[in-house]
């Protein structure tokens, strides 16, 4: 990646614009640092994992989550209002018959509150261009081999909703508690590029 070094020209340009805006009263003292801290504290895949584990152990919660995800995650003290305004959350559940995978082909829309900052591959042209056309091939590259009988449903986050995949509970986890179950869930599982 270009321009990533501390003393790089772009770092100097960003500092220059920031100083100019501070000087003109468009930025408050310390506002940038505060916003960066808020962003980094604002979301984590651990949140999506908690939602998933609760849905696995509580069928009533799972039902509410699929019908009204914003309302359901509030039960866990979570919300989609970390950004500029509350965003609609749509949770799509994997089943034996159907696997879901999420993309934003036009930019990089993503539920940061539940998944944390998005990975570079999610924002890449490679992923955005290919997963709508050849999801089975893309998932294979991620190491996810789905049976030919599993239908694939791709969701393009092209408007105001943000999407989270609800992975299937792995076999043999009947004895695990909710916290241990949450520990099994990965960011890729919540996007749909991994099974869990």
């Amino acid at each position, binding site marked *: 990646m270009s321009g990533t070094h501390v003393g790089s020209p772009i770092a100097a340009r960003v500092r220059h614009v920031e100083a100019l805006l501070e000087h003109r009263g468009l930025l408050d003292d310390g506002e940038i640092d505060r916003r960066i801290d808020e962003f980094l504290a604002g979301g984590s895949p651990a949140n999506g994992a908690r939602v998933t584990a609760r849905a696995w152990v509580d069928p009533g919660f799972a039902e509410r989550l699929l019908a009204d995800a914003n309302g359901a995650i509030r039960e866990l003290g979570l919300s989609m209002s970390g950004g500029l305004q509350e965003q*609609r959350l*749509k949770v799509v559940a994997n089943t034996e018959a159907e696997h879901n995978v999420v993309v934003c*082909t*036009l930019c990089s829309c993503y539920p940061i509150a539940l998944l944390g900052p998005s990975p570079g591959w999610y924002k890449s042209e490679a992923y955005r261009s290919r997963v*709508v*056309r*050849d*999801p*089975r091939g893309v998932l294979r590259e991620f190491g996810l081999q789905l049976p030919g009988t599993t*239908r*694939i*449903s*791709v*969701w*393009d*986050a*092209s*408007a*105001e*909703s943000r999407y989270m995949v609800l992975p299937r509970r792995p076999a043999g986890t009947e004895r695990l508690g909710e916290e241990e179950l949450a520990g099994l869930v990965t960011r890729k599982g919540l996007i749909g590029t991994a099974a869990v």
Partner: protein
Amino acid sequence: MPDLAPGMRVRTRSTDPDGHTRLPRYARGAVGVLVEEAGVHPLADERARGRAGTPQPVWHVRFAAADLFGAGDHTVTVELWEDYLVPIGERA
């Protein structure tokens, strides 16, 4: 525009607007099925021109990959403003 409802078949706009739009190129001029309404929001195309934008329903619209790309056994569900959609009558 007649009231849209889940299950209805729609065709997406095929024109290439002169500016920002949230109708992806691969889903233009294609026939899909309305899955669910996803709220009411100002049209992004208008907001991108600095206007407040007319609020209108946004829909999850499901397309068969074969109808978009000529191949593929998967579906692609795109979220589209009503402005991008024309109903084509019969239910799927």
